């Protein structure tokens, strides 16, 4: 169905090859998962399938890409619209019309289908994607998962044989992601469609894949079954890591397989399982510093940790009050209540995860905590101050905020200039921010343009900018969106160190694995209300949607992460 024959692609003639002699052959009815770090050419590979590469992007493509017998060299994307449907990363930016039903029909109108055929297909697609109740809704009013389903539906109506998706679930909460993946699986199984998708969150998709393509940064892919590829892949979801740790064969890729294999492991470890409440979370302040990866912690002459720790200590002595205090906060956008009587407290050194559906009010709560929104009733205090009244350096010294799109806060044309500007803004000695950045992410070049950094590097840069004035509170909005596993691991390290040094961290996230790794408390919001607030283990194991993979495999034993299990195995021996 899709054939790449010896395909090499460069954006600039003579430049570095993004795809290097790729040979790839995908059959009908296959769900193919493309895996790789940021910058390994995933998006390029996906866009080459319908000819956006090179017709739209320019660049130099050698070799041959054929889809359903059509060579993309001779057929531009619009002439392939009836065989390949493409859903790009942000569905909203690809919508051409404003209503659900019109959006579904748009592709068919372009293809010139007769009217009654269009009517029929729109109705079918509304049912297939579960959109019937949304047909008259404006696209702007839909939630993230609904938008993603409309985007998929809108390419489906053209009855393509291939669907290509770039990170379809990265912006979605776990429930909405399941919804989208279930719909995709139905297309593969019931209609025999070929689906190619790229996704960083392997734990969500790898069990659905028939085939996995691993792209190395060299541009040459390896392909194979999920189990075979996961055995080799440097990045793997927790279920695979656990399988490797326990030496299971064949390597499980789904929770179901792993659970069957884990019977003995559970029995072995049951006797060393601690009482649930005595198990310290990794992020808790009790953790000894020796567990931190030593390479990432140079002697902190710049004093991030030392200064932080001493600040935290004095704070703890003189002011036992919580770092963040939200008391019965109510906030609304026009007639829509966004937060209803939400109360929340954060102590120094704690890492709290804010979870809940898209639109549950997570971002709103963060914005209230940094003073961007003023509560209608109730009050917000950050280290005793009302954040809405803080400006400039006073704000920077109290709270750091990493927005969903880290690039938003970047406005200079080099990393060096950003760091210098941050020093001036927060009245720090020149070089403080750059030194901190070197500590967090040593490989970021100071001369690079912020726009050329990878997602993970950009996040590191923004973290450095926000942490330079050593605020007692750090807020993060969806920090792992679009991050590969390497960058995520580094984020986890940074957050643990911060917590250890006494900074309070509040993050809104959909990433249950991240929560299992670093959070010591989880707060769940639904329709603007706090519906649950408690220790991570208690909250995430209470509902299958929020449970990390290891917890699902090891239940009823209390471990949440692969590291937990590894530690327990060490004890058992």
């Amino acid at each position, binding site marked *: 169905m899709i054939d790449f024959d010896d395909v090499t692609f460069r954006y600039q003639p003579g430049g570095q090859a993004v795809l290097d002699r790729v040979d790839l052959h995908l059959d009908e009815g296959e769900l193919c998962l493309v895996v790789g770090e940021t910058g390994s050419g995933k998006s390029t590979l996906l866009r080459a399938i319908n000819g956006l590469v090179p017709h739209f992007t320019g660049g130099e493509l050698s070799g041959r890409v054929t889809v359903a017998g059509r060579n993309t060299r001779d057929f*531009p994307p619009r002439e392939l619209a009836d065989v390949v449907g493409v859903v790009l990363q942000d569905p909203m930016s690809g919508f051409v019309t404003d209503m659900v039903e019109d959006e579904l029909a748009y592709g068919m109108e372009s293809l010139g289908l007769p009217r009654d055929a269009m009517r029929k297909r729109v109705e079918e697609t509304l049912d297939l994607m579960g959109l019937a109740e949304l047909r008259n809704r404006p696209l702007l009013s839909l939630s993230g998962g609904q938008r993603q389903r409309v985007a998929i539906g809108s390419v489906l109506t053209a009855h393509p044989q291939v669907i290509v998706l770039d990170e379809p679930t990265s912006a979605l909460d776990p429930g909405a992601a399941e919804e989208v993946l279930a719909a995709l699986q139905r297309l593969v199984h019931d209609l025999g469609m070929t689906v190619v998708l790229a996704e960083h969150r392997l734990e969500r998709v790898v069990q659905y894949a028939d085939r996995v393509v691993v792209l190395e940064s060299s541009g040459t892919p390896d392909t194979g079954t999920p189990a075979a590829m996961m055995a080799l892949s440097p990045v793997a979801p927790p279920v695979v890591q656990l399988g490797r740790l326990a030496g299971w064969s064949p390597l499980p890729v789904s929770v179901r397989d792993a659970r069957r294999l884990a019977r003995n492991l559970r029995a072995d470890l049951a006797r060393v399982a601690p009482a649930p409440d005595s198990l310290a979370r990794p992020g808790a302040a009790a953790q000894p510093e020796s567990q931190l990866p030593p390479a990432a912690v140079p002697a902190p002459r710049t004093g991030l940790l030392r200064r932080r720790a001493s600040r935290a200590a004095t704070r703890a002595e003189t002011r036992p009050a919580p770092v963040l205090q939200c008391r019965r906060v109510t906030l609304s956008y026009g007639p829509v209540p966004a937060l209803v009587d939400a109360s929340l407290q954060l102590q120094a050194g704690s890492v709290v995860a804010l979870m809940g559906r898209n*639109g549950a009010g997570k971002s709103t709560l963060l914005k209230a905590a940094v003073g961007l929104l003023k509560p209608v009733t109730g009050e917000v205090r950050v280290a005793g101050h009302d954040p809405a009244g803080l400006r400039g350096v006073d704000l920077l010294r109290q709270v750091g905020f990493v927005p969903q799109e880290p690039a938003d806060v970047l406005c200079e044309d080099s990393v060096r200039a950003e760091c210098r500007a941050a020093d001036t803004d927060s009245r720090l000695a020149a070089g403080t921010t750059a030194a901190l950045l070197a500590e967090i992410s040593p490989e970021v070049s100071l001369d690079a343009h912020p726009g050329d950094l990878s997602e993970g590097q950009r996040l590191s840069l923004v973290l450095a900018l926000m942490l330079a004035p050593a605020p007692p509170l750090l807020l993060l909005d969806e920090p792992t969106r679009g991050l590969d596993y390497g960058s995520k691991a580094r984020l986890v390290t940074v957050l643990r160190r911060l917590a250890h040094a006494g900074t309070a961290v509040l993050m809104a996230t959909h990433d249950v694995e991240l929560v299992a790794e670093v959070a010591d408390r989880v707060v769940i919001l639904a329709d603007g209300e706090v519906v649950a607030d408690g220790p991570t283990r208690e909250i995430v194991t209470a509902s299958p949607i929020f449970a990390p993979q290891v917890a699902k495999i090891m239940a009823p034993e209390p471990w949440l992460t692969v590291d937990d299990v590894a530690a327990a195995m060490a004890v058992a021996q």
Partner: protein
Amino acid sequence: MTTTAVRKPPTGVGVRGRWLHPVAWWLWALGLATAASRTTNPALLILIVVVAGTVVAARRPQAPWSRSFGVFLRLGLIIVAIRVVFQVVFGLPQGTTVLVTLPTVDLPDWLAGVRLGGSITAESLVFALYDGLRLATVLACLGAASSLASPYRLLKAMPAALYEVGVSVVVALSFAPALVTDLQRVRTARRLRGRPTSGIRGLTGSAMPVFSGALDRSIALAAAMDSRGYGRMADLSPRDRRITAALVLGGLLGTCLGLYVLLDGSIAAPAGLPVFLLGLAAALLGLLRGGRRNTRTRYRPDPWRTPEWITAASGCAAAAAAVVQGIVDPSALNPAVTPMTWPQVPIIAVVGTLIALLPAWLTPEPPGIVRSGSASDTSTTSPETGVAV
């Protein structure tokens, strides 16, 4: 965001209504605008704004573009203010009721016709007010049309040959709200970094990220449209294309010329009519020919039924009544300012304008929009650009 009352959203899922044909709304609004352009009677002008506002309040769908009426109203107020200020600064005095006398600025000889300052009379102020009000009312009518008729549906009703031009217009339209969202996001981000968000520095600092964001989005949109078959064409010979282009351009030029002559009372109308009709015919022929290149089909085109006829006719009635009033009793349409008199009620025009109120009841409601599933968590839906729920 408008000053008019907001219709209570229908309850229940999937409340069905029907979109009135966008062309009907535009004919209605143009009729009202024509009526407004014929008069400086403030009573009639305000009545026209009220009629337009009432219909907007009753039949406005809940979509981002449907908030433009309020924007146009505000724009109208600004225009009235500018008109009055210009009158004060540059205008020649009319009448004798001097209110204030400003110092006159002596200008060089070659600017003999222009005057700065001098005495300001009540008559000239009233005249300027009326004049500004007329322009503001015309704008309000256009604003009413743009908040009642979806630009996307108007695009569907466009002749196939104009489709591609139309798409760029619509994309540009959808760009404005996105730009506003972006600007807010960037200003927020600037505050987070302790930077000024207002003033020159705030503005220049925000401009770059906003524009680069807009550029990224337009590239993404172009890629998505291309992938979905936008721009698939049937082959036509170059000669065919040239003939089509000539017909369309020549025709449109003729239409505009004819229309100008027709609407401008000072030139003899009979000369305008044939030019107008001829131009229109040429343009239509060109569009029909051009449409052959386009292989697009249309999904559920809006039907033209009785409500559409009523709407279009009621707008035309308002225009016609104003024209008739102008023939029967022109003084009521343009109340004298020197000497100042209370404006009379132009009875025919008022009745005509009131007829234009009918669509508020005689048209189907737009399809009901139920409470949205997402509030504001996603970056694309902000309280400002998101749909009211």
